[in-house]
């Protein structure tokens, strides 16, 4: 579950940014000829709804409904006891308790007189939800993700950039020769402390001892060939970086022959592997490069924007 600071700094991400996104979604409703658009989210698939309303289901599932020309409505499986807090960190003014998400959605449609709905990436719904919605007397129009977030906006880029700056500062301060001799658990603990005290919302730390790929800490000692990879979520925006104790770097983007792990960070999941640059135009991606040195594997990587002119570090 998310146990970092979930917040909304309106100076950092202004209301106007959400207004612009909602405006684009109203246009999407018009394009697909639907009165409203529905987006699914859960604790590990929160990026899309975060984009719409800043809502983050730190636990459980939710549906966000965007009626054409109106404020978004949250159908929430969490207890109403947390709704006052949700309202402080999202644009949601209306939150409907929804022990059954399909049931509550059907009820809302009946009240609004809607007979069809646009569903963002409908085949990506959990199967039980998909099946239960299918049983409702509603018509669904699949809205592909490509139509929903075609290009990373300036406000998104700014948020990812802030996260990247924080990640670089902490990683480069902790993954140094001074960490040699610590256990990987201890290094993970140090990183958790610094990132979370700096307001990280979520964090995943992977560590390589130079002999294998970065993995969750397992009790190994940090040595001169160790690397740490951090996936950091800062107010809903992910970055992924790697640094190594030997301070060996790589060109980014790397050469075509480099051993590269490339991921999409603004997709449905926090990160998803992508096979080529063509798969990921105008989106936030991370590149982690494996550098061979004296039969050891060192890792170095960062997060950037994959645009039509190539990858640019944020």
């Amino acid at each position, binding site marked *: 579950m998310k146990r970092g600071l979930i917040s909304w700094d309106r100076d950092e991400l202004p209301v106007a940014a959400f207004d612009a996104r909602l405006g684009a979604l109203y246009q999407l409703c018009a394009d697909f000829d639907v009165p409203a658009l529905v987006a699914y989210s859960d604790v590990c698939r929160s990026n899309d709804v975060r984009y719409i309303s800043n809502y983050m289901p730190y636990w459980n599932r939710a549906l966000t409904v965007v009626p054409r020309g109106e404020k978004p409505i949250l159908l929430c499986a969490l207890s109403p006891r947390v709704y006052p807090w949700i309202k402080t960190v999202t644009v949601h003014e209306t939150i409907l308790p929804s022990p059954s998400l399909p049931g509550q959605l059907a009820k809302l449609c009946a009240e609004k007189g809607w007979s069809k709905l646009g569903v963002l990436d409908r085949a990506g719904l959990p199967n039980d939800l998909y099946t239960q919605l299918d049983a409702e007397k509603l018509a669904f129009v699949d809205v592909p993700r490509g139509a929903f977030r075609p290009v990373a906006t300036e406000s998104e880029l700014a948020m990812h950039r802030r996260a990247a700056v924080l990640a670089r500062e902490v990683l480069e301060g902790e993954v140094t020769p001074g960490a040699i001799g610590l256990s990987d658990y201890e290094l993970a603990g140090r990183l958790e*402390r610094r990132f979370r005290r700096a307001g990280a919302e979520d964090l995943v730390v992977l560590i390589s001892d130079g002999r294998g790929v970065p993995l969750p800490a397992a009790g190994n000692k940090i040595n001169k060939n160790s690397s740490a990879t951090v996936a950091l979520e800062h107010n809903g925006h992910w970055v992924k970086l790697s640094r190594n104790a030997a301070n060996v770097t790589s060109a980014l983007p790397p050469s075509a022959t480099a051993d590269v792990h490339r991921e999409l960070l603004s997709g449905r999941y926090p990160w998803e592997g992508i096979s080529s640059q063509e798969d990921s135009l105008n989106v936030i991606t991370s590149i982690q490069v494996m550098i061979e040195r004296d039969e050891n594997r060192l890792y170095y990587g960062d997060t950037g924007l994959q645009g039509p002119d190539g990858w640019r570090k944020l």
Partner: protein
Amino acid sequence: MLNRDRHRHFLELMAERGWDLLLFYGDNWRKDLFRCLVNVNFQGPQAVAALFKSGEVRAVVTDPWDLEPVAAAVNGNASLALRLADGLNALLAKEPAAVVAINGMEHMEARFVQIVRDSVRTAPVSATLDVEEIRRVKSPEEIEWIKQAADLADRGYQQFVKVCEPGMTEYELVAEVEAFVKANGAEDNFMLVASGGTEVTGMKPPTGRKFQVGDSVTTELTPQVNGYYAQICRTLVIGAPNDKQLQAYSIFAEAQQAAQDLLRPGVDISDVARVQNDVFRRHGFGEYTGPQYTRVRGHNLGLYPDELPHVLENVHYIVKPDMVLIAHPNTYLPLSGYMVFGDTLLVTGTGCVSLNKTEKKLFQS
């Protein structure tokens, strides 16, 4: 690693149900649905393990860095597919099966269920409830991992008490505890907090609120060791507790003890909830045992921090030896605001034992 006990149990289940192939689908939220067979903390968006009638296990991972550890757990029978759809198609094309069951089918993306359906030309069936029933009773090895997690929960709570002080924010406190449990071997942690007085009606992720003298600071702290979670729930008061906080605590302690005294094989889990709620009723706070003020009176623990059955008066399930669950009468009371108190309990042959060693008291910082 491959869970050998579960491997045998799941093969018996397949034979009993007439399934040719049993798939285990996990994603980053519900890794347990995969890890109950292949206990590897995968990092990609999804992973699938396939158990064949022959006993062979194959796996598909979606993150290149998952390939090495998962392959090591399944005799090298693991493949990488950046798009799970491609991996499922390849997996099912090799071994066409007549009857396919899926653990986690409800949670699986509908497109993946469709791929299975198209590949075998018949609808897969859900194995989730059957697998969940098997998982409720822990093996000796699983109990050892949970004991280690309970020990870490105890030490994590000591750290919580040590660092909590006026002026600190909720999220800074969580950062300190998180750092401690990670530095001591936790791979993950489920943790809710709250702070304040009678205005606090529940717990949630930490905020920027600063602790003040007189606050109740509550937590459910749930470290995970080798996949297995154990939980502790305690309440701390900053400064000296007032009479109402002490009165509230005595009710919570009495309710938790009633659950612990009752819990044994053969008991209906609904009665474990009822005896806790009866304590609140006897003290005149029966209305605070309902869903408006609380969620559950406990739950099973294991590879998922909120396993079923939930401890509720309307949930009926006969308790079995070697189940591990937490009984926690956590709720709102007008005396104190939201308060929590609970221990991880292992059901023995004749009763239960607490796996937590933390003193049962209202803590003070």
